[in-house]
């Protein structure tokens, strides 16, 4: 069957370097000496710690409970002893500390009691809640809680769910290997998503540079009939961006103001579908993921790695070369330099690249922007990066937002093609941070203002009440005439008493003087 494929604008075709890490099957990474499990690995609220130092935990036991709806639970990746619940370096470009559970594995790898999810017998709400408590989040890189994506829009019927196996970033092969080896699980996970969202079609998009993965997935999808389609799309970065893939497969363009379910589409990563399947069939929460270890290493390979494995122990599996001068988490286009090797593998770590000058030569000096427009041609979101750059550079964030700064997905195509070698994405990230900070400030100012107003109202009310009370008191004493005369009489009596006493004292004083005089000294 032929299918009309759509296309997105722009994009680039960088060298892929993918073959090296696909020569060996997915390996199981050995148990590390310590596991550092951050409680905030997902978009949304940080998980609430549910264990204390000294507790024994089992593999798959919940150690952090979801805080609110847009949040996710966190589980122990191995059985062992909790050493501490403390701030440790995060797998984040800043390298700032984040609250983490530090576990010393006991080597037994004893699972907690697991129950497969019989979701057919449960309401969709309950199923989503279970997914949240199993810590299932998007494994493509953004780590958005999956349960929150599994409700259809009320007005629009779901047309298609898109399973994202494009994996367009160079070097990265974790989704490729997962599809080759565990296609059955991915497709079953997609079938589970289909039950919850009830779309007409399940479209599995894979870049055409992964023929083995396409073959394996097509084979697995046969079982579900014609509703499941595996579609090869031309390899072009960033075909794996959610909006780009939706555009390529369905022709729908998601406007900035709307979410994809409102257009009848929802997109999931293959790894997410696979981990959801493991949860419903075996009851296993998300405690490990496939991570590509590649770049300047002797043994480039994909490893099934426990969440919380320190990068130091993880990269040792690949024997990095001596001239390695840093490690990247994520791909070379969108990744960031790992701030320290004590930071752990988290749910969003899809790839670790050992960097060396032979692989990534230092960037040439930045030259002035000549407004040639190459970046605008390369931008997959049809933005004008040269305009964004112009305003980001002078910190005029409001003007940059008028040129749809918020729409930028930071894919790096513009910087890749820039003849002046301007690190455009860094400017856009800076500008986006500035916008975020301004929004936070505004929110804070708004709440401060409302509290000031309430305080003023409260003070005015208290003052009015006090005045009223005093007025009422004065009136009350005025009304009771008999009491008033009684008080007046009492005052009068007291005055008379005082006068008599004073008179008496005066007499006493006189007699006293006389008396004194009469006394012998």
């Amino acid at each position, binding site marked *: 069957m032929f299918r009309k494929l759509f296309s997105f604008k722009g994009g680039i075709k960088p060298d892929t370097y993918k073959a090296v890490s696909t020569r060996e099957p997915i390996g199981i990474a050995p148990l590390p000496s310590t596991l550092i499990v951050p409680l905030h690995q997902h978009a949304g609220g940080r998980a609430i710690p549910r264990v204390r130092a000294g507790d024994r935990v089992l593999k798959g036991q919940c150690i952090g409970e979801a805080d609110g709806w847009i949040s996710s639970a966190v589980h122990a990746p191995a059985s062992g002893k909790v050493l501490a619940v403390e701030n440790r370096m995060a797998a984040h470009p800043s390298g700032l500390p984040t609250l983490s559970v530090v576990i010393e594995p006991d080597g037994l790898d004893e699972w907690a009691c697991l129950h497969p999810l019989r979701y057919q017998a449960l309401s969709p709400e309950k199923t989503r809640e279970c997914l949240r408590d199993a810590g299932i989040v998007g494994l493509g890189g953004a780590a958005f809680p999956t349960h929150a994506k599994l409700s259809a829009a009320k007005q629009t019927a779901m047309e298609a769910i898109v399973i994202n196996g494009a994996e367009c970033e160079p070097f990265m092969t974790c989704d490729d290997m997962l599809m080759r080896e565990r296609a059955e699980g991915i497709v079953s996970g997609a079938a589970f998503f289909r039950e919850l969202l009830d779309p007409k079609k399940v479209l599995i998009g894979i870049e055409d540079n992964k023929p083995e993965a396409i073959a394996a997935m097509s084979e697995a999808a046969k079982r579900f009939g014609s509703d499941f389609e595996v579609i090869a799309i031309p390899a072009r970065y960033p075909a794996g961006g959610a909006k780009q893939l939706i555009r390529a497969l369905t022709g729908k363009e998601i406007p900035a103001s709307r979410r994809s379910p409102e257009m009848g589409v929802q997109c999931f990563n293959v790894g997410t579908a696979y981990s959801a399947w493991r949860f419903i069939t075996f009851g296993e929460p998300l405690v490990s993921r496939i991570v590509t270890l590649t770049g300047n290493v002797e043994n480039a390979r994909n490893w099934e790695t426990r969440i919380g494995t320190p990068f130091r122990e993880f990269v040792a599996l690949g024997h990095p070369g001596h001239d390695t001068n840093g490690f990247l988490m994520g791909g070379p286009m969108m990744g960031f330099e790992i701030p320290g090797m004590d930071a752990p593998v988290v749910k969003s770590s899809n790839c670790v690249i050992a960097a060396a000058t032979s692989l990534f030569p230092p960037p040439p000096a930045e030259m002035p922007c000549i407004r040639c427009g190459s970046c605008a041609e390369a931008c997959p979101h049809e933005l004008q990066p040269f305009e964004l750059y112009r305003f980001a550079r002078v910190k005029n964030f409001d003007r940059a937002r008028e040129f749809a700064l918020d729409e930028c997905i930071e894919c790096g195509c513009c910087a890749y093609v820039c003849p002046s070698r301007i690190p455009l994405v860094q400017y856009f990230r800076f500008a986006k941070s500035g916008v975020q900070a301004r929004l*936070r400030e505004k929110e804070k100012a708004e709440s401060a203002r409302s509290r000031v107003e309430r305080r003023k109202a409260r003070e005015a009310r208290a003052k009015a009440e006090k005045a009223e009370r005093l007025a009422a008191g004065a009136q009350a004493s005025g009304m009771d005439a008999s009491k008033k005369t009684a008080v007046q009489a009492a005052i009068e009596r007291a005055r008379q008493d005082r006068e008599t006493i004073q008179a008496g004292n005066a007499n006493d004083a006189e007699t006293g003087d006389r008396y004194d005089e009469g006394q012998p000294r």
Partner: protein
Amino acid sequence: MLTVIFPMTLGAAALGAMLGWASVRFRVDGSPLIDEIENALPQTQCGQCGFPGCRAYAEAIENGARIDLCPPGGEAGARRLADLLGRDPPAPGMEEPSPQAAVIDEQRCIGCTLCIQACPVDAIVGAAKQLHTVVGTLCTGCELCVPPCPMECIQMKAVTENIDNWAWKYPVFGIRRVN
């Protein structure tokens, strides 16, 4: 002649009456600009501008006061005001605001409630003879609670960078010598 003057006078009188009625009927109390100016101010209520609170400063600006008097707003805040009011942007060189928050030394607090009365944004909780504490996320760092404290146990601490408020830095690249 009269046929021209008469309808013109009548028309002028009718229009004048309409305008007079409209000015009474659609009268707006207070200037709507004040609210917008107030929204552009950081709401710290610190009084560093010389006016008692942000609302008072907004009213003063509307009456012609300078727009670069607000240290917590910094240059960015002054520029926003300039944009809003169509005035000249502030002279560069205003100090960058440094966010801070008050912290009460719990060992020394005697529970006198003086700081609670001083706090304009209700960010301090406590009761008479009970330990007081500052709700860190609500504190605007105005320093108004510091002078009333008889125990001198309130300190201003700079708000440090954490993973939630961390921001990407302005890209700066070292200059390299080209041979």
